[in-house]
């Protein structure tokens, strides 16, 4: 058992909201924790942003005494610039870009195929 920095799911049905908490792994996900050190809202707001609050001072303390962030929290801290970027993030980003590129290419070819081809003599 070790102390983790992880996401605890709060909010309500169809409206997730995460608290970033420090808790030993044996405690329940949304239950007892040692300290809350932030929050993460996975849904975009009216200004087209996702909001993450991080108590940097306390996170640094817990990291210094050996708390392990879970992968989602590690990703958030990486995006914030506190920790290095997780390699999976580069991988996921590349895969998303490739998927988007393939999708746009296939939609282009579909549109050219649907146009009537000129008859060759």
């Amino acid at each position, binding site marked *: 058992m070790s102390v983790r920095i992880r996401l605890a799911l709060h909010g309500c049905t169809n409206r997730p909201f995460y608290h970033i908490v420090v808790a030993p792994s044996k405690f329940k996900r949304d239950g007892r924790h040692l300290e809350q050190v932030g929050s993460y809202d996975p849904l975009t707001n009216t200004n087209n942003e*996702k909001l993450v609050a991080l108590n940097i001072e306390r996170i640094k303390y817990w990291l210094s005494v050996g708390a392990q962030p879970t992968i989602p929290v590690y990703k958030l801290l990486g*995006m*914030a610039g506190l920790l290095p970027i997780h390699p999976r993030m580069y991988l996921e980003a590349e895969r998303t870009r490739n998927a988007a590129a393939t999708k746009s290419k296939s939609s282009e070819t579909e549109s050219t195929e649907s146009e009537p081809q000129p008859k060759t003599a």
Partner: protein
Amino acid sequence: MANRSWLLKLAVGGLSRASCRYKSTQPPAKSVTDEQVQKLLTRMTGLDLDKVFKTRREPLSQPLYKLVDEHQLKKSQMETVQRARELLKMPPVLPQRKEKGELIQDDTKLAGLEDTNVVFTDISQTESNSSRRIVVREKNGNLRGATWDERDRMCQIYFPALGRQLTLPAMLQGNDLARLLKEQRHKEVLERANIQCEPDSKDYIRVHHMVYDDIDQRGLYDLLRSTRHFGGLLWYLMTRQLLKGILEEMLEKNLMEDAIDLVGLFKLCYPDHELSKNLTKAGKKCVQEFCEHQGWTDLAALASTKIDGGEPRSAQAQ
């Protein structure tokens, strides 16, 4: 009071009329926080206890009656004056803050990870809002500092200030602002702007300048007299050399000591101006001389009739 017709319509959205009325002059020799400048501005603001402690709506309570002797009455009166002086302290007058949003890390390999910007706010309790670290990871993967708009919003979300909204209230922009100024509710607008915006923010400065411009054009200086906004108004007019209107109003209202202070403030702010160098007379005659040098013959004539008259300033306002 000469009738002034409200000739210009306020532009919607805040195209500052100050930009077309401003005469570019050299910056003043003294800053607004200078002791002597503050002394003059405080004196000209005045202290009307009836206006400062105007009746306002509060939750009903039992009235409190006290039986006091003369000594205690005098003491409580002095305490009231002291409280009034605190309420009349000028809010800060600052230049507009420079834009933020500098690039921290260029990481385009992360493009596509998120389809929106992600804003990270440091909610450490030991930080103050001005120094709080707020960064944004953009859609293209770059990490940059937050702009002032984003900073204000995040600080308001996580550390809400009393009375402040997340978005700019409608009364501080566009047609609503124009309507309020038409209804002569300048003080309300300024109070709301002071609560809502930081003193060096774009909106604060825009609203204040619009209000001051409107007051100057319509001669409504008395609306702000004996409030904490009068000092800001005077400073605005002084730095833009828009002194004719206010001087005329002071002379018409017999406020000779205020007029003398205004000329004194001009000499303090622009000691190297040819006008300051040519002003040799002291006291009430200085005002007449100032008007003559500026070419305001009607005001000079008015000032000459007031030299022997004029209401003395109240002892409280010293």
